[in-house]
């Protein structure tokens, strides 16, 4: 079971998507697991062959537990003996890492074999106490959909936003960010800029585009942060085992609110190299999948810096909490018309307050200030994006 983020202790295996004998390539999805953040597709790290499933769907596994035997091109650790997969009741086999107080493992019945259901449908069935085997699926290939579950329970369909376990998600956020506040000496900087040039550029670009291809200011923010991060390696990477490891790649984590009170910050990979249209498409796809409760393991575990944009919620500025083991988070507040001095005159201009929270073990305010200033310069020349 891979660690899918600093806040994850354990996850439930929902289903295997590969069977013994399957040849797999790096990035192929081998299984779906359920974490506090929702269902996550687990990708394999290297090319190889799946030899054997070690655990069965329904098992709750701590990070580091053996899920399967897989022989890679390099080599994987020799499989350790593992407790047999629990059939009806999940029973963690390996000891849990005790970084955070142990949370009660959710006890879930394993999905009935051979049933095609979506994770959302399964969660809804659990919540409503519906037996999935008693439902006829109307989805693709006879799959049972959330609607089928809702209908069978005579519950109004679509009344509940998602099947997220918000209690577990809140606990996971508390664990990661509690650790952040205990361990990371944050320093904070803010920098207000005139965002008029970026707004004008966006309006002109979007006037030519159908809705499906329009940009959002949020995409410009992410691109600007990624571009600037290229020049400031001490703000992009991981602090692990007492030392900082700068990252060559720039994977920007995007803080995404989930209806009902959750939060996830999955990564958009290689942001600095993406054309804005590709970045925007990735962002739309990512937000949709996160809100539907499904994303990929690589997206959840490897952000190198995070961007949080709370402007839509109308606040002037946001002071981020660094998501460990990252070392910086950039925040954007609401864009609004505010008094601004241009050529010695106070005029109303669209402005935005940017903020940076960064890890003092790795960088200082001076570097942080140059970084924020650079982001501002990039946004002042949006055609460079």
């Amino acid at each position, binding site marked *: 079971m891979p660690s899918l983020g600093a806040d994850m202790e354990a996850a439930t295996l929902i289903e295997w998507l590969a069977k013994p004998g399957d040849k797999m390539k790096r990035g192929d999805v081998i299984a779906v697991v359920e974490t506090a953040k929702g269902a996550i597709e687990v990708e394999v790290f290297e090319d190889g062959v799946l030899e054997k499933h070690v655990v069965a769907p329904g098992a709750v596994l701590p990070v580091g537990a053996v899920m399967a035997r897989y022989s890679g091109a390099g080599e994987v650790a020799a499989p350790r003996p593992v407790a047999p997969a629990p059939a009806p009741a999940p029973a963690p086999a390996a000891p849990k890492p005790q970084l955070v107080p142990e949370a009660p493992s959710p006890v879930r019945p394993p999905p009935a074999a051979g049933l095609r259901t979506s994770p959302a449908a399964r969660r809804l069935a659990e919540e409503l106490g519906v037996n999935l085997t008693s439902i006829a699926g109307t989805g693709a290939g006879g799959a049972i959909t959330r609607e089928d579950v809702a209908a069978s329970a005579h519950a109004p369909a*679509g*009344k*509940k*936003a998602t099947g997220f376990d918000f209690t577990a998600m809140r606990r996971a956020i508390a664990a990661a960010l509690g650790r952040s506040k205990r361990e990371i000496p944050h320093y904070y900087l803010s920098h207000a800029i005139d965002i008029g040039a970026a707004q004008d550029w966006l*309006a002109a670009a*979007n*006037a030519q585009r*159908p*809705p*499906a291809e*329009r940009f*959002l*200011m*949020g995409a410009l923010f992410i691109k600007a942060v990624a571009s600037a991060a290229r020049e400031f390696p001490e703000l992009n990477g991981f602090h692990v085992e007492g030392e900082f490891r700068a990252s060559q790649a720039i994977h920007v984590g995007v803080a995404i*609110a989930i*209806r*009902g009170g959750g939060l996830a910050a999955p990564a958009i990979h290689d942001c600095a190299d993406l054309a804005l249209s590709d970045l925007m498409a990735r*962002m*739309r796809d990512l*937000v*949709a999948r996160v809100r539907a409760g499904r994303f990929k393991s690589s997206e959840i575990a490897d952000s190198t810096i995070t961007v949080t944009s709370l402007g*839509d*919620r109308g606040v002037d500025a946001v002071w981020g909490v660094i998501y460990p083991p990252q070392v910086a988070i950039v925040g954007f507040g609401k864009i609004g018309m505010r008094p601004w001095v241009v050529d010695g005159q106070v005029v109303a201009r669209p402005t935005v307050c940017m903020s940076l929270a960064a890890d003092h073990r790795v960088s200082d305010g001076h570097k942080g200030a140059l970084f924020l200033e650079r982001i501002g310069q990039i946004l002042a020349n949006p055609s460079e994006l």
Partner: protein
Amino acid sequence: MTADQILAIIRDELARLAPEVDFDTADRNRLIQQEFDIDSMDFLNFITALHARLGVNVPEADYARVATISGAQAYLLAMVRT
């Protein structure tokens, strides 16, 4: 296309974005983004869905005119009839 049919489409699409909000008791003259607690990405998805379903391409310059349910209904009705 009638006003009721357009309202049904608006209702449908907002239910996708904010399934827990009761459309029937929502204030139709309040900003959709506030009433349904949706962000700019959701709103863009709403506009995209209206384009796909009604063929009405709402330019950004007209976003203010479709920012409430009643505003959107009137705007879309006028556009599908022209």
